[in-house]
């Protein structure tokens, strides 16, 4: 039986944290095929063959789990000549289940503890809502691990380009990127404080680094508050810094309004944190030497703020 080769007592922290963050409902297959106890095993075997699956939960009309018919049960039925019998007579009734809100870590230990290829998933009312196979778990884990590795690479990159190695005047062009996530105020501000430190260590005038910090932070918060996530890109050349804030949507329906001081679509929670004063874009425009925005409802927003690092004209 397929085990999931993750040792939860000595895996890297990033892996453990993913295992605890993801829930069974994030990995399970749903909606799922179910069989009724009155279906014949022959019928169930055909459904399994047609859908390329190796087990089907048996449920009553209210979606309560009664048992499961696996490939093993089908083989036994063929051996013993009861393949035309009803599933209710021969299904496996000793079924181990998972609850949809359990963490993935729990699920992984179940796979390694019991020799089952799949676990039915129940909701809090004990209704059948999905099924988890080892391959569901592995593919979701791979996706999550990929994302995490990508994030760590970014962090490593920005650490490399951090204060120690920062010599903006000697290279042609340096590009630094940070990701933002919707409503993740924990990491909001990281990009802006990093970039400000980088400029400061590069000997850029403090008034200019402050203006860069303001624009960067406003744009970062805009992505956190309003977008489905985005990228903060800093393109550093000898004399200029371009901040490109690019998100994946949902876009700004009325640009003129968005550029008006005091206009805001932020919700109560955002306002309670001290954001959403309707000053983000106007503030950014005010401090930048050049300002460009492109957006429309239904697609992403791109804001480009350019700064002259060797003395400037903006207030």
């Amino acid at each position: 039986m397929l085990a999931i080769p993750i040792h939860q007592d000595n895996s890297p922290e990033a892996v453990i944290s993913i295992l605890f963050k993801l829930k069974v409902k994030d990995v399970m297959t749903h909606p799922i095929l179910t069989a009724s106890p009155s279906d014949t095993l022959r019928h169930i075997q055909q459904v399994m063959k047609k859908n390329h699956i190796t087990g089907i939960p048996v449920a009553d009309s209210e979606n309560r789990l009664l048992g499961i018919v696996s490939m093993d049960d089908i083989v036994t039925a063929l051996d013993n000549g009861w393949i035309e019998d009803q599933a209710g007579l021969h299904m496996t009734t000793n079924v181990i289940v998972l609850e949809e809100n359990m963490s993935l870590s729990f699920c992984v230990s179940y796979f390694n503890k019991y020799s089952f290829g799949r676990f039915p998933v129940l909701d809090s009312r004990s209704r059948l809502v999905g099924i988890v196979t080892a391959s569901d778990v592995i593919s979701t884990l791979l996706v999550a691990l990929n994302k995490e590795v990508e994030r760590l690479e970014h962090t490593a990159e920005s650490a490399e380009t951090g204060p120690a190695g920062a010599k903006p005047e000697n290279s042609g062009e340096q590009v630094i990127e940070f990701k933002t996530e919707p409503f993740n105020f924990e990491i909001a501000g990281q990009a802006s404080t990093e970039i400000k430190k980088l400029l400061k260590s590069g000997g850029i005038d403090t008034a200019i680094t402050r203006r860069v910090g303001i624009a960067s932070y406003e744009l970062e918060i805009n992505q956190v508050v309003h977008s489905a996530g985005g990228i903060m890109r800093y393109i550093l050349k000898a004399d200029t810094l371009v901040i490109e804030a690019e998100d994946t949507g949902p876009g700004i329906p009325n640009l003129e309004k968005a550029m008006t001081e005091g206009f805001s679509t932020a919700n109560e929670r955002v306002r309670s944190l001290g954001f959403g004063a309707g000053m983000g874009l106007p503030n950014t425009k005010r401090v930048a030497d050049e300002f460009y925005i492109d957006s429309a409802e239904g697609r992403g927003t791109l804001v480009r703020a350019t700064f002259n690092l060797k003395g400037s004209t903006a207030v």
Partner: protein
Amino acid sequence: MKTSELGSFLGADCLQGDYEDRDIAGAYTSDLLSDAMANAVDEGILITIQAHKNTIAVATIKDLRAIVLCNNRPVPDDMIEAARNEGIALFVTKDSQYEVSGKLYAQLSGT
């Protein structure tokens, strides 16, 4: 006025005292972070009730010396931690923003 004089002058508790003691350039009172970012005095202090990490980000960008948190707002540990990393002093007081501003007004604009 220097950062180290703020606590006793206001009767405020210092929650983060790991900072470089320098002159305070002025003060600004606001609970809107964008507003604070646009209008706070560089190298001054911010008087606010916004007790969370994002206020530290704003203070870092504006090179603020200190943040005075009013109305005895509970201050989360990660905010204190962030302030320590950035060397920004953190004070908390039972007074309102109005009272703190009033106490500091003559002191900071008279010089």
